[in-house]
């Protein structure tokens, strides 16, 4: 905690760099303005508009879309989406932490090779990997075939098109986003600190909870930020592996833009969704700063 507080003033020395700093930041700023700020403003404008019977946006002011967002139907969907994302995040931490820790503790060539294995799946398209899961989980698929062949089960299990399949798909898709940042923290962790904890009488559990977890917390927090929010908005996996049975908020927003042709309502959902996360992030940030102070 002290280390964090000590580094804070160092940032102020950069303030004088002015022009150079802005130049270096320009590509990022341009990117943010073009692909984040401008589309978000467009969404904001749309969300107060109406639609005609073909689904074209009519620029006439209306609060109606926002009134509909807070209909219990959509609040329930949002709640369910957050539930799925939270479960995915917890599972990813539980599975990803030991993996990241193990990789970080290896010697040099092996460590890089293991890291490569985590990243190799990214070389294939996300959709193709999802279809591969369909081939594994379907009732005449690889997993059922293996289990039946080995005599564990007699009738095929119904795995595909269930909530379990959705969670498997989500955990699979986001696991690397959890492993990599935790690895980053774990690799930097000085073993001497763990040894010091042992020397001072901490058992393995106490050393883990009081030394290792706090020191790798930045990695865990980064992993959670990287995956929790995208997991809430994910729609492809629920459609492909969940059979589109139970809508999550991503599916609903996507449907508004295409199937239902109600862009203003879709935009209102998107705006509320985004505001919620900005707010959550701001609160988390404030609490962290308060804790650091």
């Amino acid at each position, binding site marked *: 905690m002290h280390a964090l507080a000590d580094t804070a003033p160092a940032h102020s020395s950069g303030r004088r760099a002015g*022009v*150079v700093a802005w*130049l270096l930041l320009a590509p990022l700023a341009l990117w943010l303005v073009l692909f984040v700020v401008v589309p978000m403003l467009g969404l904001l404008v749309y969300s107060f508009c109406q639609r005609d*019977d*073909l*689904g*074209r946006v009519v620029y006439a002011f209306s609060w109606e879309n926002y009134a509909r967002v807070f209909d219990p*139907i959509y609040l*329930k*969907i949002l709640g369910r989406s957050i539930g799925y994302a939270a479960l995915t995040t917890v599972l990813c931490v539980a599975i990803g932490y030991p993996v990241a820790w193990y990789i970080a503790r290896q010697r040099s060539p092996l460590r890089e090779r293991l890291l490569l294995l985590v990243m190799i799946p990214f070389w294939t398209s996300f959709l193709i990997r999802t279809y591969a899961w369909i081939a594994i989980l*379907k*009732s*005449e*698929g690889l997993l059922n075939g293996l289990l039946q062949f080995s005599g564990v089960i007699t009738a095929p299990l*119904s795995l*595909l*098109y269930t909530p379990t399949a959705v969670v498997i798909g989500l955990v699979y898709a986001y696991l690397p986003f959890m492993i990599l940042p935790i690895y980053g923290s774990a690799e930097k962790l000085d073993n001497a600190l763990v040894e010091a904890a042992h020397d001072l009488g901490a058992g393995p559990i106490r050393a883990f909870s009081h030394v290792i977890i706090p020191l790798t917390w930045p990695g865990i927090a980064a992993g959670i930020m990287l995956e929790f929010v995208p997991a809430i908005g994910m729609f492809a996996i629920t*459609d492909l592996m969940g*059979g*589109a*049975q*139970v*809508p999550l908020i991503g599916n*609903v927003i996507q*449907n508004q*833009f*295409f*199937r*239902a*042709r*109600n*862009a203003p309502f879709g935009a209102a959902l998107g705006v509320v969704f985004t505001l919620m996360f900005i707010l959550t992030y701001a609160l988390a940030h404030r609490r962290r700063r308060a804790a650091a102070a």
Partner: protein
Amino acid sequence: MIPLPGSRVIVLLLAVLGLALAPLRAANKEINLFAWSEYFPQSVLEGFTKETGIRINYETFASGEEMLAKLLAGGTAYDLVQPPDYIAEALIKNRLLLPLDYAKLPGVKNILPEYLNMAHDPEQRYTLPYMASTVGIVVNTERVKEPVTGLVDLFSERHAGRIVVVDDARELVTAALYVLGHPLNEINAKNLAEARPLLAQWMKRIKLYDSDSPKTALLNGDVDLGYVWGGEAARLWAENPKFAYVIPKEGAHQFVDVMAIPQGAKNVEAAHRFLAYLLRPEVSKAISDEFPYTNPNGAARKLLSPAQLSNPASYPPGNPKFGTFRHLGETGAMIDELITDLKNAR
């Protein structure tokens, strides 16, 4: 002080980007085709390019609504679109299609009379029928022994967790309206309120919603029954006749997908040449070979094999009860809300 690159560099960069993205095409040397996925054989597209030198950019969609949304968004200047009949009706009513020049389309005489002057285009000015089909029931007769003749049988309790349906809110609502005995275009609060409990019961029994390829789950054995597009059912039957196609006795939705030239098309001449090519009997037959929907081209049907013509999903025997969709307007949103609500209630 480091010299600023200034706005001139940015302008230059943007100009280069603009050049790269600008359409480097001569008029009528290519066609931007916006059509359903899994509907044009590659050989048919390549045959046209080989004959005329006109390149075809085939962009796909998975629902009529998606097509309409992207067409209206106006990102690409499409030269040919392929809306289902009721979307074509909406486009015609809003003056978003160009009239066709029939002098350039002599092959229109090949189209069977029942597919001309239909409700969506009563004067036959804007559209040409591409393929027609129905939405009906597929039964894996190896797994399902009891007879399934209608929608009530399909969605019965004993089939719970074994059904795939197209992920299309209007098709589901239509099935319920048929069972209740209401006309399929009378979408109003009263009829939807009546349909609601029935749909709620059915939707608890549906395992999978898939519009893109509902046949896959049936082939994989994940489900045993389906409420799917006739063309998908026809491909299943051709693969294995254990997949029987049943036109529900309560009635079925029949649709025609049409070709049309939207306002704003840049290559109208080339689009007409492609339409004339599609009307040729041998080309139309090649489409039926790969995608066995109901072919509205009478001359092409004469070229089909007896096996193709006896496919019950392509050419349903007997005289079943069919209805077509009309453009709904505002009430369409009620359907979407009902189905979202019901999916959510599970």
